[in-house]
């Protein structure tokens, strides 16, 4: 009996010590870790999506639902796939009716209308993986309900295309086929990537494309062509084929096949969806580069040699905008010194080998230890703008791994 009591006392003491240690650890970190994050109340956040089934969209969703939602007392409500401004307005109405305190948007049919509607209803609004135009930012930067935008800015998009093309031009390739994605639909992100490819070709080839050589001229030239580009010789290099749009009909697939089957074409470049477009038609001796996302299929394609350059968004890249949104909802908004909303750029992870892609993907697809974990994000709850900007700016794989240590 005595020994039982001793064991009991020992166990209870141990339990107390562990608890105290646990408390002190939590408390110690909570100064940084939670520092005011109120986990007692569930926060509903609406998420607007223009793409509900794409690999990239699913990866983003998985990060929010399978990691963030399990770590924080938040509930994400996802919209259906939104195809136009009316559908966006309708989805926002749904979220407001369901008492969402904030909306994170991946849809861009009419961003100003989205922000206005949210602000009128005192709901915080943030842009994930995108940016506002300069005029839009000027209009909304002082609106307290506009949290801001974190994502590749247009210069980053331009550089994504430029670096991809340069990667092959530096290896001496001169004949290219380009898939311009949503360029014919006037989607800035794809227009800038396409412009980047063309400027790199101009620099390497010593020529011009429709009279344009640098970024500004090239954007002007593309708009001047109503975003309908055509093959051209650019000095010593050549844009052998160009395909734009997402028609997904026989004629469109035919054009992709024709571009890949052209014996002159050495390199296939896609400003988006390279695996869904060129990969099926690519000849073994050709090279394929794309701006896309880290998925199991992309890794397999790199291992198989189908794909050899991938500039991809990583799914946890939407972690910081979540933290900025949560901060705003819980009364600690992250704003510039002038009280303006966030406008921070974030770039891509670039893999040029299968091993690299595999390494990136294993982190990117993890639901237990993703690129941005709760302890990393918690440090920036209600943070000063400069600290937060530095955190977002250190987006490369290596930098993020260093931050984790």
């Amino acid at each position, binding site marked *: 009996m005595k020994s039982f009591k001793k064991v009991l006392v020992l166990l209870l003491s141990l339990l107390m010590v562990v608890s105290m240690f646990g408390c002190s650890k939590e408390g110690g970190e909570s100064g940084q870790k939670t520092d005011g994050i109120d986990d007692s109340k569930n926060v509903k956040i609406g998420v607007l999506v223009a793409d*509900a089934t794409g690999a990239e969209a699913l990866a983003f969703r998985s990060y929010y639902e399978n990691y963030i939602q399990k770590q924080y007392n938040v*509930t994400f*409500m*996802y*919209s*259906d*796939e939104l*195809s*136009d*401004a*009316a*559908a*966006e*307005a*309708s989805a926002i*109405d*749904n979220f*407001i*009716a*369901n*008492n969402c305190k904030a909306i994170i948007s991946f849809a861009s*049919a*009419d961003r*100003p*209308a989205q922000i*206005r509607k949210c602000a009128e*209803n005192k709901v915080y609004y943030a842009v994930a993986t995108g940016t506002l135009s300069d005029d839009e930012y000027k209009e909304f930067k002082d609106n307290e309900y506009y949290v801001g935008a974190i994502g590749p800015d247009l210069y980053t998009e331009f550089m994504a295309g430029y670096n991809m093309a340069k990667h092959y031009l530096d290896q001496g390739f001169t004949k290219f086929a380009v898939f311009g994605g949503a360029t014919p*639909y*006037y*989607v800035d992100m794809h227009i800038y990537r396409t412009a980047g490819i063309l400027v790199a070709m101009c620099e390497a080839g010593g020529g011009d494309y429709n009279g344009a050589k640098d970024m500004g001229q090239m954007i002007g030239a593309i708009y001047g062509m*109503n975003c309908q580009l055509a093959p051209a010789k650019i000095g010593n290099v050549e844009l052998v084929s160009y395909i734009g749009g997402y028609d997904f009909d026989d004629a469109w697939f035919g054009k992709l096949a024709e571009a890949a089957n052209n014996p002159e074409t050495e390199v296939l470049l896609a400003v988006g969806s390279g695996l869904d477009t060129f990969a099926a038609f690519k000849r073994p001796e050709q090279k394929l580069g794309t701006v896309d996302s880290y998925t199991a299929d992309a890794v397999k394609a790199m291992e198989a040699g189908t794909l050899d350059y991938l500039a991809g968004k990583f799914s946890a890249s939407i972690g910081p905008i979540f933290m900025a949104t949560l901060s705003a909802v819980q009364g600690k908004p992250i704003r510039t010194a002038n009280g303006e909303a966030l406008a921070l750029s974030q770039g891509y992870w670039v893999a040029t080998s299968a091993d690299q892609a595999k390494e990136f993907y294993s982190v990117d697809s993890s639901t237990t230890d993703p690129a941005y974990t709760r302890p990393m994000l918690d440090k920036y709850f209600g943070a000063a703008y400069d600290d937060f900007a530095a955190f977002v700016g250190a987006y490369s794989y290596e930098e993020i791994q260093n931050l984790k240590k």
Partner: protein
Amino acid sequence: MDNEKIVRKEHVKNLIFQIAPIVGLLLLFGLFMAFAVIKDINIPYSMKNIINQSVIVVVVATGAIFIYTLGSFDISLGANMCVSALIGAMAYNRTGSLAVMIGTCILTAVLIALVCSVLASVFNLPVFVTTIAMLSLLNAAVLMLIGANGTGDIIQVPAEAVSAINTVWFKLIIMLVYLGICIFVFNFLKLGRQEKFAGGNPECARLTGLNNSKLAIIAFIMAGIGVGLGAFLTITYAPTLSRNTASSVGMDVIISIVFGGMPVSGGARSKIYSAVVGALSMTLLSQIMLMLNLNSGISQMVKAIIFILVVFISMSDGRKSILPR
């Protein structure tokens, strides 16, 4: 005595089938309210939201009932609405007049509907065949209009121009006025009876002296007015138009009409209120699924199953039994 029993049984059966959609709507409303209370939903905003989301489908579907009554259907309604909205928006941007915009929307939609029905009459084709051709034409027209406007991939009306009329009351008034006209035409004028007759048995109607082509043209004009109003209300709600504007309207209209208890074969059992009942039921169902935070895949599956069930039940009330009198 036996015959009397059968007739009474049929009457009861008919009554059940007639009130079933309304009972369904009331049940969905009850469910919605129950979940709204449990989930602490913003009920006033939800009600406003339900009206906002239903009103366009109600208006377009109410007009489309005239076509469905003839036993036909129009799959180009969404594309027609998109073209009408784009032209209406361009007209506003030229004139700055809302009256011109609404007039242009209605005129464009009616003209497109007329072309569709006249083509069917001239070539003696089933109406739905011409609507398939029209769908392709209108989709091409959308791209041309957007390209010709020279404003990227959108056509926009300034938000402040329509913000004053983007109210629930304004939309309700438009809906009720149009609904009133349609109910009057459908239920109290001989045109409505003729449409039901022609839809139930076109050959018999022709032999009786009815001009089926004329009836089809009138049906399309009524539907065109609804589409034009729908286009105007779309601009009011979201003044940024793109090639995807109203892309889901065509399907929403079909689903609403069937949800509302309209027989897919048209004819005598056609009901003008089916559109209202169906659109509201569909919106309530969507809202309930949203409250439960079901992902869109599951919610689409639920809708599909209910759709098939409704069609199955309405078909089981078929003509194997006695004709309604």
